């Protein structure tokens, strides 16, 4: 089967604006979804779930969230870790305060609470831009971590200062707590990611997404064609924080089970998710997946190869990882600001015309 767009004529505007206009892409997408839902759950074990799949799914949610704000709406944020913490603590408080409510509702509510907090910290974006906004969100990051450390009410006055997820069931199967099977963690996060990615795709392809992108590309022109910058920016902060809050809730409850805020949701987390969208591609849902996959897999791969195969010291492998990530960030920022997604697209464009270069 050739990768071609010729002969695949669109006869309606609906067909023309679909997510995967090329048939081959569409088929590949269905195959990936079928494998993700139908095959992986049967093969997954604890190692693969904890080292690769679950963190990938959760980071992909966070990356989509940050990409909506930064990649689509052009508002730089270094507060991702802090907003994930809001989601985690909101989820924890809801789980312990209302144990009878289904766990998915807690996760969704944690998202909405984070959205509210995000809007609050997004208010400065109406006045300041770029570097200054980044600094303001950095302040949010440190303030939120400090808050969750300082006020014992948030961690239910536990002696350790940590929060620990109690066991919660969905359809009679544990999804949080120590007894959760690997496949249940995986499937629970996968379903949420799948739904959220679909929503994000819908939002970004219609008028809401165009408002965000107009603000990103030229805010003055956007305003003059009728975009209200206040609602456009704050809606981006709200939606973005909703995603990041859900990612934080899952990171705490499903993935780690117990967290100490500074360790799990510190400034490194903000940078990690930012690096994901830079490497994956700003302003692209696919890029969020690619970036999350890349930065989750890289350390696992390096550890297995360098430490496992060549017997290097673990800290040496960790340093090499830092160097590789740093180099890649510089490469993508300078050479290819649209990230892996763009490299992928260029490769596809070449393939579409192959074997004739023009």
């Amino acid at each position, binding site marked *: 089967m050739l990768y071609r767009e010729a002969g695949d004529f669109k006869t309606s505007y609906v067909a023309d604006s679909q997510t995967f206009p090329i048939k081959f892409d569409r088929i590949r997408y269905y195959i990936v979804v079928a494998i993700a839902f139908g095959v992986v759950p049967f093969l997954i074990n604890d190692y693969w779930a904890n080292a690769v799949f679950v963190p990938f799914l959760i980071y992909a949610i966070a990356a989509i969230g940050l990409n909506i704000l930064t990649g689509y709406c052009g508002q730089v944020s270094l507060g991702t870790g802090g907003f994930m913490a809001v989601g985690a603590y909101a989820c924890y408080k809801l789980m312990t305060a209302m144990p009878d409510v289904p766990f998915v509702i807690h996760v969704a509510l944690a998202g909405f609470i984070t959205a509210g907090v995000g809007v609050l910290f997004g208010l400065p974006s109406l006045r300041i831009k770029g570097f200054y906004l980044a600094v303001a969100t950095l302040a949010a990051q440190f303030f939120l971590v400090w808050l969750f450390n300082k006020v014992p009410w948030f961690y239910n006055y536990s002696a350790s200062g940590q929060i620990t997820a109690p066991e919660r069931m969905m359809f009679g199967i544990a999804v949080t707590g120590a007894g959760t099977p690997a496949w249940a963690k995986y499937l629970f996060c996968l379903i949420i990611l799948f739904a959220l990615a679909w929503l994000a795709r819908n939002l970004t392809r219609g*008028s*809401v997404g165009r408002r965000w992108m107009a603000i990103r590309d*030229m805010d003055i022109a956007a305003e003059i*064609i*009728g975009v*209200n910058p206040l609602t456009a920016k704050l809606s981006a902060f709200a939606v973005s924080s909703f995603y990041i809050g859900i990612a934080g809730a899952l990171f705490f409850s499903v993935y780690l089970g117990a967290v100490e805020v500074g360790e799990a949701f510190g400034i490194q987390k903000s940078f990690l998710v930012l690096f994901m969208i830079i490497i994956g591609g700003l302003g692209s849902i696919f890029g969020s997946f690619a970036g999350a996959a890349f930065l989750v897999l890289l350390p696992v791969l390096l550890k297995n190869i360098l430490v496992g195969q060549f017997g290097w010291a673990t800290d040496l492998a960790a340093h090499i990882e830092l160097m590789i990530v740093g180099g890649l960030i510089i490469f993508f920022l300078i050479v290819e600001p649209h990230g892996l997604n763009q490299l992928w697209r260029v490769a596809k464009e070449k393939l579409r015309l192959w074997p004739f270069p023009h």
Partner: protein
Amino acid sequence: MNAQIPLSSYTMTADGRKIGAVLMEMKNITLRFGGVKAITDISFDIREGEIRSIIGPNGAGKSSMLNVISGFYVPQEGEVWFRGARRPQMKPYEVARQGIARTFQNIALFDGMSVLDNIMTGRLTLMKTGLLAQSFWWGSAEREETAHREKVEKIIDFLEIQAIRKTPVGRLPYGLKKRVELARALAAEPKLLLLDEPMAGMNVEEKEDMCRFILDVNDEFGTTIALIEHDMGVVMDLSDRVVVMDYGKKIGDGTPDEVRNNQAVIDAYLGVSHE
């Protein structure tokens, strides 16, 4: 000041187009930037259906005047009247929603988006679907998208840019960018269209195309147009009436013929160059 044309009655132009009542009136506008007076006590009106040009040497304050109309600059003195009512101070996006669209002297397209998406953004003022319906891509969201797409395709056909529909605007040559910007403004189906030097930097052929588009827009959709242009041939051909500015002051106002024969205008702009 504009007593030569009676208000609220139709006048026919030579080519038989209808010119209606006063659509927009600027009354004694003064705009200062710190100590610099960009506009000094200027009054003029724009009538429904006409092509109204604003001309003047560089720095005369023409773009500033458009920026006042689109709510981007707030004049220190004077009033803006639109459709028979005094317009309160408005944000640019509120002005856009009143049916005023524009293009910019320095192209202001959304470089990260395709031509199609750029033109679709022009219709944002007409789109109603909320965040929720949009995120689930419910029937209404999809129907709205398709309906607006159909309108946008008409504009794409009209401006003859079918071939570049999916191209990112950043890759387009200058002349086409200007055309896409016009398309984006037209997409809003404006009552009043403000064009800031739509032909600057174009070659003769591109200028001819652009002139044809402007005349067609005015003719077919009855859109009122306020035009800033340096090319005198173009201005004299297209305009129904012309305002002449110099150093922020109005030095002439009338039909192309009247303006051409106005001594102050000849001195300031047409014949004698500024030293």
